[in-house]
Protein backbone atom coordinates (compact mmCIF):
# COMPACT_ATOMS: atom_id res chain seq x y z
CA UNK A 1 0.00 0.00 0.00
CA UNK A 2 1.48 3.26 -1.05
CA UNK A 3 -1.03 5.49 0.74
CA UNK A 4 -1.93 5.58 4.40
CA UNK A 5 -4.64 2.96 4.02
CA UNK A 6 -2.60 0.62 6.18
CA UNK A 7 -3.22 2.81 9.23
CA UNK A 8 -6.98 2.70 8.69
CA UNK A 9 -6.79 -1.05 8.30
CA UNK A 10 -4.70 -1.49 11.42
CA UNK A 11 -7.09 0.72 13.41
CA UNK A 12 -10.17 -1.11 12.12
CA UNK A 13 -8.70 -4.48 13.02
CA UNK A 14 -7.54 -3.31 16.47
CA UNK A 15 -10.77 -1.55 17.40
CA UNK A 16 -12.80 -4.35 19.07
CA UNK A 17 -9.93 -5.44 21.31
CA UNK A 18 -8.79 -1.91 22.13
CA UNK A 19 -12.26 -0.55 22.94
CA UNK A 20 -12.98 -3.71 24.95
CA UNK A 21 -9.83 -3.32 27.05
CA UNK A 22 -10.55 0.39 27.60
CA UNK A 23 -14.07 -0.50 28.67
CA UNK A 24 -12.61 -2.75 31.35
CA UNK A 25 -10.48 0.14 32.65
CA UNK A 26 -13.17 2.78 32.63
CA UNK A 27 -16.37 0.74 32.93
CA UNK A 28 -18.07 3.33 30.81
CA UNK A 29 -18.79 2.85 27.15
CA UNK A 30 -18.65 6.52 26.16
CA UNK A 31 -15.41 7.06 27.97
CA UNK A 32 -13.88 3.95 26.41
CA UNK A 33 -14.92 5.11 22.94
CA UNK A 34 -13.58 8.63 23.52
CA UNK A 35 -10.28 7.22 24.77
CA UNK A 36 -10.04 5.03 21.69
CA UNK A 37 -10.82 7.99 19.39
CA UNK A 38 -8.10 10.03 21.04
CA UNK A 39 -5.64 7.14 20.67
CA UNK A 40 -6.51 6.90 16.97
CA UNK A 41 -5.84 10.60 16.44
CA UNK A 42 -2.46 10.19 18.07
CA UNK A 43 -1.77 7.04 16.07
CA UNK A 44 -2.35 8.93 12.82
CA UNK A 45 0.38 11.39 13.81
CA UNK A 46 2.81 8.99 15.41
CA UNK A 47 2.54 5.97 13.11
CA UNK A 48 3.06 8.04 9.97
CA UNK A 49 6.33 9.26 11.41
CA UNK A 50 7.54 6.14 13.21
CA UNK A 51 5.84 3.31 11.38
CA UNK A 52 3.38 0.89 13.00
CA UNK A 53 4.07 -0.30 16.55
CA UNK A 54 4.80 -3.97 17.03
CA UNK A 55 1.51 -4.44 18.89
CA UNK A 56 -1.02 -1.83 17.70
CA UNK A 57 -3.72 -2.93 20.17
CA UNK A 58 -1.44 -2.53 23.20
CA UNK A 59 -0.27 0.84 21.84
CA UNK A 60 -3.84 2.09 21.40
CA UNK A 61 -4.94 0.87 24.83
CA UNK A 62 -1.97 2.44 26.59
CA UNK A 63 -2.19 5.77 24.77
CA UNK A 64 -5.99 5.89 25.00
CA UNK A 65 -5.96 5.06 28.68
CA UNK A 66 -3.36 7.71 29.51
CA UNK A 67 -5.14 10.35 27.45
CA UNK A 68 -8.44 9.62 29.20
CA UNK A 69 -6.80 9.66 32.63
CA UNK A 70 -5.22 13.04 31.85
CA UNK A 71 -8.59 14.28 30.77
CA UNK A 72 -10.27 13.05 33.95
CA UNK A 73 -7.58 14.65 36.13
CA UNK A 74 -7.85 17.93 34.26
CA UNK A 75 -11.61 18.01 34.64
CA UNK A 76 -11.27 17.10 38.31
CA UNK A 77 -8.97 20.10 38.83
CA UNK A 78 -11.29 22.42 36.94
CA UNK A 79 -14.34 21.45 38.90
CA UNK A 80 -12.40 20.89 42.11
CA UNK A 81 -14.33 17.69 42.75
CA UNK A 82 -12.69 14.39 43.61
CA UNK A 83 -13.60 12.03 40.81
CA UNK A 84 -11.36 9.14 41.66
CA UNK A 85 -14.31 6.79 41.81
CA UNK A 86 -14.95 7.31 38.09
CA UNK A 87 -11.87 5.30 37.32
CA UNK A 88 -12.87 2.29 39.30
CA UNK A 89 -9.73 0.25 38.80
CA UNK A 90 -7.09 2.92 38.73
CA UNK A 91 -4.66 0.82 40.78
CA UNK A 92 -5.38 -2.14 38.67
CA UNK A 93 -4.53 -0.11 35.57
CA UNK A 94 -1.01 0.44 36.87
CA UNK A 95 -0.01 -3.22 36.68
CA UNK A 96 2.32 -3.97 33.78
CA UNK A 97 0.43 -3.54 30.56
CA UNK A 98 2.06 -6.35 28.63
CA UNK A 99 0.97 -8.88 31.20
CA UNK A 100 -2.57 -7.58 31.32
CA UNK A 101 -3.06 -7.54 27.59
CA UNK A 102 -2.39 -11.20 27.15
CA UNK A 103 -4.82 -13.60 25.56
CA UNK A 104 -7.23 -14.52 28.32
CA UNK A 105 -7.96 -10.92 29.28
CA UNK A 106 -8.60 -9.86 25.73
CA UNK A 107 -10.89 -12.79 25.27
CA UNK A 108 -13.21 -11.88 28.12
CA UNK A 109 -12.89 -8.17 27.30
CA UNK A 110 -14.03 -8.60 23.72
CA UNK A 111 -16.70 -11.04 24.75
CA UNK A 112 -17.98 -8.54 27.33
CA UNK A 113 -18.04 -5.74 24.78
CA UNK A 114 -20.00 -7.90 22.33
CA UNK A 115 -22.24 -9.19 25.08
CA UNK A 116 -23.14 -5.69 26.23
CA UNK A 117 -24.43 -5.02 22.72
CA UNK A 118 -26.89 -7.89 22.97
CA UNK A 119 -28.13 -7.07 26.44
CA UNK A 120 -31.70 -8.38 26.87
CA UNK A 121 -32.98 -4.89 27.71
CA UNK A 122 -32.15 -3.80 24.14
CA UNK A 123 -34.47 -4.24 21.17
CA UNK A 124 -32.99 -6.19 18.25
CA UNK A 125 -32.58 -3.07 16.11
CA UNK A 126 -30.74 -1.39 18.98
CA UNK A 127 -28.44 -4.37 19.43
CA UNK A 128 -27.41 -4.38 15.81
CA UNK A 129 -26.90 -0.61 15.66
CA UNK A 130 -24.88 -0.60 18.86
CA UNK A 131 -22.62 -3.47 17.77
CA UNK A 132 -21.93 -1.81 14.43
CA UNK A 133 -21.21 1.54 16.04
CA UNK A 134 -19.25 0.51 19.11
CA UNK A 135 -17.55 -2.76 18.16
CA UNK A 136 -17.03 -2.23 14.45
CA UNK A 137 -16.77 1.55 14.45
CA UNK A 138 -19.06 1.94 11.44
CA UNK A 139 -19.81 5.68 11.04
CA UNK A 140 -23.20 6.72 12.36
CA UNK A 141 -24.34 8.07 8.99
CA UNK A 142 -23.65 4.73 7.30
CA UNK A 143 -25.61 2.80 9.93
CA UNK A 144 -28.47 5.29 9.56
CA UNK A 145 -28.50 4.79 5.77
CA UNK A 146 -28.49 1.01 6.16
CA UNK A 147 -31.56 1.19 8.39
CA UNK A 148 -33.29 3.89 6.34
CA UNK A 149 -33.53 6.35 9.23
CA UNK A 150 -32.15 9.86 9.66
CA UNK A 151 -28.76 10.40 11.30
CA UNK A 152 -30.39 12.04 14.30
CA UNK A 153 -32.86 9.16 14.73
CA UNK A 154 -29.97 6.68 14.64
CA UNK A 155 -27.96 8.76 17.07
CA UNK A 156 -30.91 8.75 19.42
CA UNK A 157 -31.31 4.98 19.06
CA UNK A 158 -27.67 4.44 20.00
CA UNK A 159 -27.73 6.96 22.84
CA UNK A 160 -30.81 5.28 24.31
CA UNK A 161 -29.17 1.89 23.99
CA UNK A 162 -26.10 3.13 25.84
CA UNK A 163 -28.28 4.65 28.56
CA UNK A 164 -30.10 1.34 28.97
CA UNK A 165 -26.78 -0.46 29.33
CA UNK A 166 -25.45 2.04 31.84
CA UNK A 167 -28.49 1.27 34.01
CA UNK A 168 -28.25 -2.45 33.46
CA UNK A 169 -25.29 -3.11 35.76
CA UNK A 170 -23.02 -5.18 33.56
CA UNK A 171 -20.72 -7.47 35.55
CA UNK A 172 -17.04 -6.77 35.06
CA UNK A 173 -15.62 -9.78 36.83
CA UNK A 174 -14.30 -12.51 34.54
CA UNK A 175 -17.26 -14.83 33.83
CA UNK A 176 -17.37 -18.45 34.99
CA UNK A 177 -17.51 -21.22 32.38
CA UNK A 178 -21.32 -21.48 32.33
CA UNK A 179 -21.75 -17.73 32.10
CA UNK A 180 -19.10 -17.52 29.40
CA UNK A 181 -20.94 -20.14 27.35
CA UNK A 182 -24.19 -18.17 27.73
CA UNK A 183 -22.48 -15.01 26.58
CA UNK A 184 -20.96 -16.72 23.56
CA UNK A 185 -24.42 -18.01 22.60
CA UNK A 186 -26.02 -14.58 22.97
CA UNK A 187 -23.24 -12.93 20.97
CA UNK A 188 -23.50 -15.56 18.24
CA UNK A 189 -27.22 -14.87 17.91
CA UNK A 190 -26.59 -11.13 17.68
CA UNK A 191 -23.87 -11.58 15.04
CA UNK A 192 -26.22 -13.71 12.98
CA UNK A 193 -28.80 -10.90 13.16
CA UNK A 194 -26.19 -8.46 11.86
CA UNK A 195 -25.35 -10.92 9.10
CA UNK A 196 -28.99 -11.29 8.11
CA UNK A 197 -29.48 -7.54 7.95
CA UNK A 198 -26.83 -7.49 5.26
CA UNK A 199 -27.79 -10.76 3.60
CA UNK A 200 -31.50 -10.06 3.30
CA UNK A 201 -30.77 -6.52 2.15
CA UNK A 202 -27.99 -7.55 -0.23
CA UNK A 203 -29.54 -5.68 -3.16
CA UNK A 204 -29.08 -2.44 -1.22
CA UNK A 205 -25.47 -1.18 -1.38
CA UNK A 206 -25.86 0.44 2.04
CA UNK A 207 -26.90 -2.77 3.74
CA UNK A 208 -24.90 -5.41 1.89
CA UNK A 209 -21.59 -4.66 3.71
CA UNK A 210 -23.19 -5.61 7.04
CA UNK A 211 -22.92 -9.30 6.21
CA UNK A 212 -19.17 -8.99 5.61
CA UNK A 213 -18.80 -7.09 8.87
CA UNK A 214 -20.66 -9.89 10.68
CA UNK A 215 -18.25 -12.40 9.12
CA UNK A 216 -15.30 -10.36 10.35
CA UNK A 217 -16.72 -10.29 13.89
CA UNK A 218 -17.53 -14.01 13.78
CA UNK A 219 -13.90 -14.70 12.80
CA UNK A 220 -12.85 -12.59 15.77
CA UNK A 221 -15.17 -14.57 18.05
CA UNK A 222 -13.78 -17.83 16.73
CA UNK A 223 -10.19 -16.64 17.21
CA UNK A 224 -11.11 -16.08 20.86
CA UNK A 225 -13.00 -19.38 21.19
CA UNK A 226 -11.09 -21.67 18.86
CA UNK A 227 -12.70 -24.82 20.23
CA UNK A 228 -16.37 -23.85 20.17
CA UNK A 229 -18.12 -25.92 17.50
CA UNK A 230 -21.15 -23.61 17.41
CA UNK A 231 -18.92 -20.61 16.70
CA UNK A 232 -17.31 -22.62 13.89
CA UNK A 233 -20.81 -23.47 12.69
CA UNK A 234 -21.90 -19.84 12.82
CA UNK A 235 -18.93 -18.64 10.78
CA UNK A 236 -19.30 -21.55 8.34
CA UNK A 237 -23.00 -20.75 7.88
CA UNK A 238 -22.27 -17.10 7.19
CA UNK A 239 -19.47 -17.89 4.74
CA UNK A 240 -21.43 -20.53 2.84
CA UNK A 241 -24.39 -18.18 2.45
CA UNK A 242 -22.29 -15.15 1.62
CA UNK A 243 -20.40 -17.21 -0.99
CA UNK A 244 -23.49 -17.06 -3.19
CA UNK A 245 -23.70 -13.26 -3.10
CA UNK A 246 -22.62 -12.64 -6.70
CA UNK A 247 -25.15 -15.17 -8.03
CA UNK A 248 -28.17 -14.10 -5.98
CA UNK A 249 -29.26 -11.18 -8.15
CA UNK A 250 -29.35 -10.75 -11.89
CA UNK A 251 -28.40 -7.63 -13.83
CA UNK A 252 -31.88 -6.18 -13.17
CA UNK A 253 -31.35 -6.70 -9.43
CA UNK A 254 -34.04 -9.40 -9.47
CA UNK A 255 -33.48 -12.27 -7.05
CA UNK A 256 -32.26 -15.49 -8.66
CA UNK A 257 -33.51 -18.68 -6.99
CA UNK A 258 -30.94 -21.19 -5.77
CA UNK A 259 -31.91 -23.60 -8.53
CA UNK A 260 -31.25 -20.97 -11.22
CA UNK A 261 -28.02 -19.55 -9.80
CA UNK A 262 -24.89 -19.77 -11.86
CA UNK A 263 -22.67 -21.75 -9.51
CA UNK A 264 -19.50 -20.56 -11.19
CA UNK A 265 -20.21 -17.18 -9.60
CA UNK A 266 -20.13 -18.64 -6.11
CA UNK A 267 -17.06 -17.58 -4.13
CA UNK A 268 -14.78 -20.63 -3.97
CA UNK A 269 -12.57 -19.22 -1.25
CA UNK A 270 -15.51 -18.62 1.11
CA UNK A 271 -16.87 -22.08 0.34
CA UNK A 272 -13.50 -23.69 1.10
CA UNK A 273 -13.29 -21.89 4.41
CA UNK A 274 -16.91 -22.72 5.27
CA UNK A 275 -16.46 -26.41 4.44
CA UNK A 276 -13.22 -26.59 6.44
CA UNK A 277 -14.98 -25.06 9.44
CA UNK A 278 -18.02 -27.32 9.33
CA UNK A 279 -15.70 -30.35 9.06
CA UNK A 280 -13.82 -29.12 12.14
CA UNK A 281 -17.06 -28.47 14.03
CA UNK A 282 -18.52 -31.94 13.33
CA UNK A 283 -15.48 -33.61 14.89
CA UNK A 284 -16.60 -32.29 18.28
CA UNK A 285 -19.83 -34.29 18.20
CA UNK A 286 -21.70 -31.45 19.85
CA UNK A 287 -24.23 -30.47 17.20
CA UNK A 288 -26.08 -27.18 17.44
CA UNK A 289 -28.40 -25.10 15.32
CA UNK A 290 -25.66 -23.16 13.54
CA UNK A 291 -23.73 -26.31 12.71
CA UNK A 292 -26.82 -28.00 11.29
CA UNK A 293 -27.77 -24.96 9.21
CA UNK A 294 -24.16 -24.71 8.04
CA UNK A 295 -24.24 -28.41 7.14
CA UNK A 296 -27.35 -27.75 5.03
CA UNK A 297 -25.62 -24.85 3.30
CA UNK A 298 -22.55 -27.08 2.84
CA UNK A 299 -24.68 -29.76 1.16
CA UNK A 300 -25.82 -27.15 -1.37
CA UNK A 301 -22.25 -25.88 -1.79
CA UNK A 302 -20.93 -29.38 -2.48
CA UNK A 303 -23.44 -30.00 -5.29
CA UNK A 304 -21.93 -29.14 -8.66
CA UNK A 305 -25.41 -28.46 -10.08
CA UNK A 306 -28.85 -28.03 -8.54
CA UNK A 307 -29.80 -31.48 -9.91
CA UNK A 308 -26.88 -33.02 -8.00
CA UNK A 309 -28.20 -31.75 -4.64
CA UNK A 310 -28.31 -34.46 -1.99
CA UNK A 311 -31.94 -33.89 -0.97
CA UNK A 312 -32.01 -36.92 1.34
CA UNK A 313 -29.17 -35.40 3.33
CA UNK A 314 -30.93 -32.03 3.43
CA UNK A 315 -34.19 -33.66 4.53
CA UNK A 316 -32.28 -35.47 7.28
CA UNK A 317 -30.51 -32.31 8.47
CA UNK A 318 -33.79 -30.37 8.59
CA UNK A 319 -35.37 -33.14 10.63
CA UNK A 320 -32.48 -32.86 13.12
CA UNK A 321 -32.96 -29.10 13.19
CA UNK A 322 -36.71 -29.54 13.75
CA UNK A 323 -35.89 -31.70 16.75
CA UNK A 324 -33.58 -29.06 18.23
CA UNK A 325 -35.67 -26.04 17.47
CA UNK A 326 -39.24 -26.94 16.48
CA UNK A 327 -40.54 -24.22 14.18
CA UNK A 328 -43.05 -24.15 11.33
CA UNK A 329 -40.52 -22.25 9.21
CA UNK A 330 -38.04 -25.11 9.51
CA UNK A 331 -40.75 -27.62 8.59
CA UNK A 332 -41.59 -25.46 5.58
CA UNK A 333 -37.96 -25.56 4.47
CA UNK A 334 -37.85 -29.29 5.02
CA UNK A 335 -40.91 -29.65 2.81
CA UNK A 336 -38.90 -28.32 -0.13
CA UNK A 337 -36.46 -31.22 0.29
CA UNK A 338 -39.33 -33.66 0.77
CA UNK A 339 -40.91 -32.33 -2.43
CA UNK A 340 -37.73 -33.21 -4.32
CA UNK A 341 -37.53 -36.67 -2.76
CA UNK A 342 -41.17 -37.76 -2.65
CA UNK A 343 -43.00 -35.34 -4.88
CA UNK A 344 -45.17 -32.25 -4.49
CA UNK A 345 -48.11 -34.07 -2.86
CA UNK A 346 -45.96 -35.25 0.06
CA UNK A 347 -44.60 -31.75 0.46
CA UNK A 348 -48.07 -30.23 0.38
CA UNK A 349 -49.31 -32.71 2.99
CA UNK A 350 -46.41 -31.66 5.17
CA UNK A 351 -47.04 -27.92 5.02
CA UNK A 352 -50.86 -27.77 5.09
CA UNK A 353 -51.05 -28.22 8.88
CA UNK A 354 -48.80 -25.15 9.20
CA UNK A 355 -51.20 -22.74 7.52
CA UNK A 356 -52.70 -21.38 10.77
CA UNK A 357 -49.30 -20.47 12.15
CA UNK A 358 -47.84 -19.19 8.88
CA UNK A 359 -50.89 -17.33 7.60
CA UNK A 360 -48.90 -14.09 7.50
CA UNK A 361 -45.75 -15.59 5.99
CA UNK A 362 -44.79 -14.82 2.41
CA UNK A 363 -42.70 -17.95 1.89
CA UNK A 364 -45.52 -20.24 3.04
CA UNK A 365 -47.80 -19.16 0.22
CA UNK A 366 -44.92 -19.03 -2.26
CA UNK A 367 -44.07 -22.66 -1.47
CA UNK A 368 -47.72 -23.73 -1.38
CA UNK A 369 -48.33 -22.13 -4.75
CA UNK A 370 -45.29 -23.86 -6.21
CA UNK A 371 -46.34 -27.31 -4.95
CA UNK A 372 -49.90 -26.79 -6.23
CA UNK A 373 -48.57 -25.66 -9.60
CA UNK A 374 -46.43 -28.79 -9.81
CA UNK A 375 -49.55 -30.86 -9.15
CA UNK A 376 -51.39 -29.07 -11.96
CA UNK A 377 -53.87 -27.46 -9.54
CA UNK A 378 -53.48 -24.11 -11.25
CA UNK A 379 -56.53 -22.29 -9.89
CA UNK A 380 -55.53 -23.05 -6.27
CA UNK A 381 -51.92 -22.18 -7.09
CA UNK A 382 -53.02 -18.78 -8.34
CA UNK A 383 -54.86 -18.09 -5.08
CA UNK A 384 -51.77 -19.01 -3.06
CA UNK A 385 -49.52 -16.84 -5.24
CA UNK A 386 -51.90 -13.89 -4.91
CA UNK A 387 -51.71 -14.16 -1.13
CA UNK A 388 -47.91 -14.41 -1.34
CA UNK A 389 -47.72 -11.19 -3.33
CA UNK A 390 -49.92 -9.46 -0.76
CA UNK A 391 -47.46 -10.57 1.93
CA UNK A 392 -44.22 -9.87 0.02
CA UNK A 393 -41.61 -7.98 2.02
CA UNK A 394 -39.83 -6.51 -0.96
CA UNK A 395 -40.28 -5.68 -4.63
CA UNK A 396 -37.94 -8.57 -5.47
CA UNK A 397 -40.08 -11.08 -3.59
CA UNK A 398 -43.23 -9.89 -5.34
CA UNK A 399 -41.50 -10.01 -8.72
CA UNK A 400 -40.46 -13.62 -8.10
CA UNK A 401 -44.05 -14.68 -7.53
CA UNK A 402 -45.29 -12.67 -10.49
CA UNK A 403 -43.04 -14.80 -12.70
CA UNK A 404 -44.97 -17.89 -11.54
CA UNK A 405 -48.30 -16.15 -12.14
CA UNK A 406 -47.22 -15.10 -15.63
CA UNK A 407 -46.26 -18.69 -16.39
CA UNK A 408 -49.67 -19.92 -15.20
CA UNK A 409 -51.39 -17.31 -17.31
CA UNK A 410 -49.41 -18.26 -20.41
CA UNK A 411 -50.26 -21.90 -19.83
CA UNK A 412 -53.95 -21.07 -19.39
CA UNK A 413 -53.85 -19.04 -22.59
CA UNK A 414 -52.16 -21.82 -24.55
CA UNK A 415 -54.61 -24.44 -23.23
CA UNK A 416 -57.66 -22.34 -24.02
CA UNK A 417 -56.22 -21.56 -27.47
CA UNK A 418 -55.70 -25.25 -28.19
CA UNK A 419 -59.18 -26.35 -27.17
Amino acid sequence: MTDLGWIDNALTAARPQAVAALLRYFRDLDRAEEAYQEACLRALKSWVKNGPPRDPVAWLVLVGRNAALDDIRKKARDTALPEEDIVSDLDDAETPLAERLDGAHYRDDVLRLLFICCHPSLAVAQQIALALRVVSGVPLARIARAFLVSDSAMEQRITRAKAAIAKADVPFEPPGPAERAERVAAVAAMLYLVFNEGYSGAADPDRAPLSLEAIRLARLLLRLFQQEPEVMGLLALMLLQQARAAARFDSNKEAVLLEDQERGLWNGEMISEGLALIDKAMRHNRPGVYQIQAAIAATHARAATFEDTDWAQIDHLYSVLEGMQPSPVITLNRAVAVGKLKGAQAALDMIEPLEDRLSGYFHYFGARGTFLMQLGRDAEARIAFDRAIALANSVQEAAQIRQHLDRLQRQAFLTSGAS
Partner: protein
Amino acid sequence: MLYTLICYNKEEVVWSWSREEDEAVMARLGKVHERLTREGKLGPSLRLLPTTAATTLRENLVMDGPFAETKEQLLGFYLIEVADLEAALDVARQLQEVNPTSTYEVRPVALFVPDERKDRATLSHTVKAY
Protein backbone atom coordinates in the same frame (compact mmCIF):
# COMPACT_ATOMS: atom_id res chain seq x y z
CA MET B 1 19.29 -22.55 -4.85
CA LEU B 2 15.71 -23.22 -3.83
CA TYR B 3 14.28 -20.82 -1.29
CA THR B 4 10.86 -20.38 0.23
CA LEU B 5 9.58 -16.89 0.86
CA ILE B 6 7.22 -17.20 3.79
CA CYS B 7 4.75 -14.37 4.19
CA TYR B 8 3.60 -13.22 7.64
CA ASN B 9 1.11 -10.54 8.55
CA LYS B 10 -1.60 -9.85 11.12
CA GLU B 11 -4.42 -11.93 9.77
CA GLU B 12 -7.10 -9.94 11.57
CA VAL B 13 -5.89 -6.96 9.54
CA VAL B 14 -5.49 -8.73 6.21
CA TRP B 15 -8.88 -10.44 6.53
CA SER B 16 -10.44 -7.04 7.30
CA TRP B 17 -9.30 -5.63 3.97
CA SER B 18 -12.21 -4.63 1.80
CA ARG B 19 -12.60 -6.61 -1.41
CA GLU B 20 -11.28 -3.63 -3.38
CA GLU B 21 -8.19 -3.38 -1.20
CA ASP B 22 -7.59 -7.10 -1.39
CA GLU B 23 -7.96 -7.11 -5.15
CA ALA B 24 -5.63 -4.13 -5.46
CA VAL B 25 -2.91 -5.88 -3.44
CA MET B 26 -3.38 -9.11 -5.40
CA ALA B 27 -3.23 -7.21 -8.70
CA ARG B 28 0.03 -5.54 -7.72
CA LEU B 29 1.45 -8.86 -6.54
CA GLY B 30 0.23 -10.44 -9.77
CA LYS B 31 2.46 -8.13 -11.78
CA VAL B 32 5.47 -9.08 -9.69
CA HIS B 33 4.56 -12.77 -10.04
CA GLU B 34 4.41 -12.40 -13.83
CA ARG B 35 7.80 -10.76 -13.93
CA LEU B 36 9.33 -13.44 -11.69
CA THR B 37 7.78 -16.18 -13.80
CA ARG B 38 9.24 -14.62 -16.97
CA GLU B 39 12.62 -14.54 -15.28
CA GLY B 40 12.25 -18.24 -14.46
CA LYS B 41 12.42 -17.69 -10.70
CA LEU B 42 8.92 -18.43 -9.46
CA GLY B 43 7.73 -21.92 -8.55
CA PRO B 44 4.41 -22.85 -6.92
CA SER B 45 2.88 -20.41 -4.45
CA LEU B 46 0.08 -20.63 -1.92
CA ARG B 47 -2.18 -18.25 -0.06
CA LEU B 48 -3.68 -19.78 3.08
CA LEU B 49 -7.12 -19.39 4.62
CA PRO B 50 -7.20 -17.87 8.15
CA THR B 51 -5.82 -19.84 11.09
CA THR B 52 -9.37 -20.19 12.44
CA ALA B 53 -9.83 -22.76 9.66
CA ALA B 54 -6.72 -24.66 10.79
CA THR B 55 -6.51 -27.92 12.73
CA THR B 56 -3.34 -29.07 14.46
CA LEU B 57 -2.24 -32.61 15.21
CA ARG B 58 0.16 -32.66 18.11
CA GLU B 59 1.28 -35.71 20.07
CA ASN B 60 -1.58 -37.61 18.51
CA LEU B 61 -4.11 -35.03 19.73
CA VAL B 62 -6.24 -33.12 17.27
CA MET B 63 -6.58 -29.49 18.30
CA ASP B 64 -8.48 -26.60 16.79
CA GLY B 65 -6.50 -23.68 15.49
CA PRO B 66 -2.93 -23.07 14.41
CA PHE B 67 0.22 -24.64 15.85
CA ALA B 68 1.05 -21.50 17.80
CA GLU B 69 -0.80 -18.37 18.85
CA THR B 70 1.32 -15.58 17.45
CA LYS B 71 0.89 -11.86 16.88
CA GLU B 72 1.49 -12.35 13.18
CA GLN B 73 0.35 -15.39 11.24
CA LEU B 74 1.70 -17.42 8.36
CA LEU B 75 -0.46 -16.30 5.43
CA GLY B 76 1.20 -17.98 2.48
CA PHE B 77 4.44 -18.86 0.78
CA TYR B 78 6.35 -18.98 -2.50
CA LEU B 79 8.92 -21.38 -3.78
CA ILE B 80 11.62 -19.58 -5.77
CA GLU B 81 14.76 -20.67 -7.56
CA VAL B 82 17.56 -18.11 -7.52
CA ALA B 83 21.37 -18.01 -7.44
CA ASP B 84 21.95 -16.97 -3.86
CA LEU B 85 20.62 -15.25 -0.75
CA GLU B 86 21.05 -11.78 -2.24
CA ALA B 87 18.91 -12.76 -5.21
CA ALA B 88 16.30 -14.29 -2.87
CA LEU B 89 16.20 -11.11 -0.79
CA ASP B 90 15.81 -9.14 -3.98
CA VAL B 91 12.68 -11.14 -4.84
CA ALA B 92 11.38 -10.64 -1.29
CA ARG B 93 11.94 -6.89 -1.65
CA GLN B 94 9.95 -6.81 -4.88
CA LEU B 95 7.03 -8.53 -3.14
CA GLN B 96 7.24 -6.33 -0.08
CA GLU B 97 7.33 -3.20 -2.18
CA VAL B 98 3.76 -3.87 -3.34
CA ASN B 99 2.61 -5.47 -0.06
CA PRO B 100 4.50 -3.40 2.51
CA THR B 101 2.73 -4.48 5.71
CA SER B 102 3.74 -8.11 5.22
CA THR B 103 6.96 -9.65 6.48
CA TYR B 104 8.80 -12.18 4.32
CA GLU B 105 10.98 -14.86 5.84
CA VAL B 106 13.59 -16.10 3.36
CA ARG B 107 14.37 -19.71 4.10
CA PRO B 108 16.37 -22.21 2.05
CA VAL B 109 14.76 -25.50 1.07
CA ALA B 110 16.26 -28.81 2.22
CA LEU B 111 14.08 -31.17 0.21
CA PHE B 112 11.65 -30.52 -2.61
CA VAL B 113 9.30 -33.21 -3.89
CA PRO B 114 7.65 -32.01 -7.09
CA ASP B 115 4.00 -32.70 -7.84
CA GLU B 116 4.02 -35.97 -9.82
CA ARG B 117 0.29 -36.31 -10.36
CA LYS B 118 -0.96 -36.21 -13.93
CA ASP B 119 -4.12 -34.23 -13.21
CA ARG B 120 -2.46 -31.21 -11.64
CA ALA B 121 -5.04 -28.92 -13.23
CA THR B 122 -7.69 -30.33 -10.91
CA LEU B 123 -5.76 -29.24 -7.86
CA SER B 124 -5.14 -25.71 -9.07
CA HIS B 125 -8.88 -25.41 -9.57
CA THR B 126 -10.02 -26.92 -6.31
CA VAL B 127 -10.51 -23.61 -4.60
CA LYS B 128 -12.15 -21.75 -7.44
CA ALA B 129 -14.28 -24.45 -9.04
CA TYR B 130 -17.36 -24.56 -6.80
